[in-house]
């Protein structure tokens, strides 16, 4: 039964990793402007 406990914490760890990635991205301003990049993608260069 210990396996399920390890798996449980592993899944928490993985999800926690994504949460940390999300927090870092937000703090660096990734979500500050979600409107301009779709326009910018029209550029050829």
């Amino acid at each position, binding site marked *: 039964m210990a396996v*399920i406990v390890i798996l449980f914490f592993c899944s928490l760890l993985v999800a926690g990793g994504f949460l940390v990635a999300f927090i870092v991205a937000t703090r660096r301003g990734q979500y500050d402007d979600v409107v301009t990049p779709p326009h910018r993608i029209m550029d050829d260069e």
Partner: protein
Amino acid sequence: MVETETTTARCKHCGDHIGSADMAARIGDDVFCCSGCASVFEILSSHNLCSYYSIDASAGSPQRNAVADTTDYDALDTPEILKKFTEWKSGDLQRISFYVPSMHCASCVWLLEQLHKIDEGIRHSDVNYLNKTVAVEFNSTITQASSIARLLSRVGYPPLLTIEGDEQQRLGARRHVLRGLYLRLGVAGFAMANIMMIAIAIYFAGGIAGLPAELQEIFPWTAIALSVPVFFFSASPWLKGALAALKQLPRRGLQTLTLDVPVALGMTAIFVRSIVEIITGTGEGFLDSFVGLVFFLLVGRLLLEKAYARISFNRTYKSFFPLWVRREKRASEEIVPLEKITVGDILIIRNGEVIPADGILMGDTAYIDYSFVSGESRPVVVRNSQLLYAGGKAAGGLIRMVATSTVQQSYLVKLWERSAVRNSGSVYETVSNTFGRWFTIATILIALTAFVIWLPDTSSAFLVFSAVLIIACPCALTIAAPIALGTAMGVLGAKGIFLRTANTLADLLRIRAVAFDKTGTLTEAISEPDFSALVVSDTERQMVGCLASQSSHPVARTIARHCTYNSATMHAVGVHEVAGYGISGTVNGAEIRIGTAGFVQHHDTVAATHISINGDYRGYVRQTPTLRQGIINLRRLPNRLLLSGDTDQDKELFKAVFGQQMFFGLKPDEKRQLITRVQHETGRILMVGDGLNDAAAMAAANVSIAVTDHTGTLAPASDVVMNASRIQDIPALLTYARQIHRVVWATFVFSLAYNVLGIGLAVLGRLTPVMAAIMMPASSLIVIAMSVAGAHYYARKHVWQ
């Protein structure tokens, strides 16, 4: 004389149709509607930036009506002024940002990020499309802020260097609001998903006792660990709001009880209770419901923020006032920020600049254009040592004045603030504030009473107490009304109708009469000139065009567009323009006067632009108005009135819509009096005008709509700014306001029914806190869905099919 195919030609820059007569410029195979468009094209083509035209077909804005840019960009190089625009500075490198309101498509973004190809001092520029700002990083040894601003203006994107422009480019603060919200939402979402996983395991095991022994310990404690950050971080906006309200309670009484209080109380009750249950081992807690609740409340708040971010309605006096002014100090001029003006300063206002503070004129006569403040479009003559009011525009020369007030105390700012007061406090706000306050008090009282009644049975009493607090959800008031109104504002914005505040929708209810201005509102602001009453030869016609092209007056510009001349062989000398009257000058030896009847010394009553050559009267040019499309639609409105300052020469055009309710030759103040009279006799009145000339009448009406050709126009006293092509939608707008009102009331009623039922069941002990916590976010979602769907449904199905 001109090939027929050019009559259907389109301007290469702005894409507008051009008739042969007004084709102003031609470069190679490309034709342009005006020299403004042509010069933008020249700059772009000489720097290989013509892909601008292929990204978005409607990229260029017409430059025809753009008044010659008189902004004093040199002031930008004054360190004190530049500081306002600077993001950072290190050595020679500097990053400044400007608010550019004319940005509107992918091409705009592309071009504004290619600025380094035009000015080599620019290292890099980037655009924030939502905020309409462009940030430019440049080397200050190669280029200056003033030349960057001038470059933006030359390619058709003049930066707005007014107080509003300054505030807009500082909007960065708002980004951080959203950042905080995203972080709170991320944490709550993470906790919710994982606690749900635990809850599902417990559910399938048939309760916590069905789980293996080691998981019985681990699961509840993990859930606590996950929910603690949700309580202290994600839920903090409500907890802080409630704490602040409770702190104010002893001093300001029950009115401080905001809607945050029951929400925070409910959250705390369910959170603390769950923790106590888990620690004492008396139950499983309802942490899954708790995090779900916080998560959905945050989603609601985010949707709201997004809806508000799309709505920009900041046309106050702030978008009109400059950021700086020239002050005379010991016989020399200095540039100072506006807020540094003190009483007694000597200010220098150049032609076309706005007077920022009340003052007294020094020196001789000056012409002041007060159209913004009083609605009077003709310049006013002010003599030495007479009063000048802030908001006036210097017309026809430099003015020196002594300031007698600061900017904040000036007449215009006070006028604006007074009209802002009128706009606050709508039906919805009053209802939701009063209802919300009593709701909070009632909920707490009911919860306490129920607790006391159930008291012999302590555990049941606690359950009932938490259930009542949790199920009581004032969500229709906290979320639904703003979301319905916000969605409606978004829907209207997409249609070219911009509301000042969401409450304007409530003001549009029960309108009994609608008054319209004529010129610029029902007719196009720029109409086609009629040359049939003018007797001139071809050469003379060109000479008239040559002189007219020297003026920036709209009528003169229209004449110049229709009388093209060869600038190589024809020159105007001795040009003298008297603002509000006309222009005179000598072209190829002939003295030409263009202007009012008095100006050309002719007695004629026709309201038109008269022309004389060498003192010989040659007739007039009249502009026949072009009706805007769909005016006939306005017949659906109640009690239509036409208020016009012009003569009644176009009476027949409007008879179908207005019948006998037409009033001509009204002065701005007479318009205002008429509005007040109708208000007393008929009831609430809506005034539709062009924003500049009808300020007084619009301020007197209950609601006002400003109609404009390009949304950059200022509308001082108006509640709604509407794209001119949308004027036929005014009846639809009124219908829509009524339907949104119905949607809001429906959500109120739903929420009330839900609360009566829910609290009833909770008091009777028929509702466990788990059920309550599921029902509460569910009811919030239903209410949100009702309001969003309602706002879109009515817009699509019933109003704009």
